[in-house]
């Protein structure tokens, strides 16, 4: 038996921007305090997150296959993929930095894509789960997303700094960098458009 203890069941809407409670009405209303549009749940949360995730998965492949930057030393260039750059760091005896890049640019995007897919599956198939833990997972996913930008920033710094003509030059790989940046942005938007209240809505006995 479900208890009527959520705002939705009591006919109330909490403003997404300022947190003020308002009575639910049939037509679209705006918050009396901040002017934001009121929604009980984020509109089309499932569909939007799903679409963003699918595009994220698709772009994750070129992001890892194409070289993300080419380091030219004295006229000899060697292109690196994201994984190749990490291997180069390990061979250069910089294991902690290599681990940092590995976590930020390979593990975080991948785990984010998989984690959000699990959340969507959970909502769609109405899995009875420990919603508290799943909400915590969602919170971690939306917190770590921005750290994947690390690789993009590093490339932009290297490209702008290392312009020593024939001595050394760093050229960014357009295809990989653009698709990697898109993966980061798409997953950040996906996390933002997913509504964690849906996890609680599908639980039968809370």
């Amino acid at each position, binding site marked *: 038996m479900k208890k*009527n*203890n*959520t*705002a*939705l069941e*009591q006919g*109330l809407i*909490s403003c*997404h*921007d*300022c*947190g*003020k*409670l*308002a*009575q639910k009405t049939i037509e679209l209303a705006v918050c009396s*305090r*901040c*002017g934001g549009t009121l929604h009980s749940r984020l509109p089309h949360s499932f569909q939007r997150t799903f679409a963003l995730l699918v595009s994220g998965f698709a772009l994750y492949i070129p992001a890892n296959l194409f070289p993300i930057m080419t380091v030219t030393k004295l006229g000899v260039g060697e292109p690196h993929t994201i994984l190749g750059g990490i291997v180069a760091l390990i061979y*250069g005896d*910089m294991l902690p*930095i290599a681990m*940092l*890049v590995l976590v*930020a640019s390979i593990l975080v995007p991948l785990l984010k894509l998989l984690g959000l897919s699990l959340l969507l599956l959970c909502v769609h198939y109405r899995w009875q789960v420990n*919603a*508290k833990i799943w*909400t*915590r997972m969602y*919170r971690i996913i939306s917190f770590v997303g*921005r*750290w994947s*930008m*690390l690789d*993009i*920033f*590093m490339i*932009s*710094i*290297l*490209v*702008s*700094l*290392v*312009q*020593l003509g024939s*001595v*050394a030059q760093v050229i*960014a790989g*357009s295809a990989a*960098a*653009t698709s990697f*940046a898109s993966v980061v942005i798409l997953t*950040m938007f996906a996390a933002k458009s997913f509504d*964690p*209240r849906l*996890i*609680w*809505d599908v639980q039968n006995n*809370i």
Partner: protein
Amino acid sequence: MTIHKMIDYEKNIKMRSNVRIENKKPKSGHKNNRCESKYLACPECDLLLQQILAVAGDKVHCPRCDYLLHRPRDQSISRTFALSLAGLFLLFPANFLPMIGVKALGSYHDGTLLDGAFTLFREGMWGVAILVFFSSIFFPVLSIVLSLLISGHLYFNRPNRHLSFWLRTLQHIDEWAMLEVYLIGIIVACVKLASMAELKFGLGLTAFVLLLFVSLMLANNFDRALFWQRIEQLKIHEKK
């Protein structure tokens, strides 16, 4: 207060404050307004909760999903005002002074924060360039300017019809200003470069690190509930 006691205290608050409301319908009709301000819903699990008075130092969590509902701060408005002023002064050196210089085989080249985005743009990667520009320059600048505008108006009790729009914008761009990620990017780039060239650190980098500290302190001092409450008060005051 020892750590153990502090944790106990926090737990205490959690238990006392957010009593679940079960099968208790908020009164409707003309008493509506009073009722609505007495309750709040958890933004992550939609549980209806009773509003409580928390003082600075307390952390109010949702009893069901553990979401941090409210964390009052001492003098949030005046501190935000002071910090955003400091941030405004730091913006110029952080953006325009050279951060890192590279010296190898007699040639020298240094770059500012702006160069990163512009070089990518010149190389034809405008998508990534725009992203870098927005997350490392535009959104940090905008968030400091908005913090200054909002806290300034609240500090001097000046109502403005754009206040709520500004605060909403500030909340939305918050996630996209990535100064701390950029700093780690600088560190990784420096480690990669250290083997092949001599590095020189400029004043721009110092200003950038200070700016990062200011924006972290801003985020830490920001008391969302208080800001919305004060904006509402100013609005009502203006109508009278």
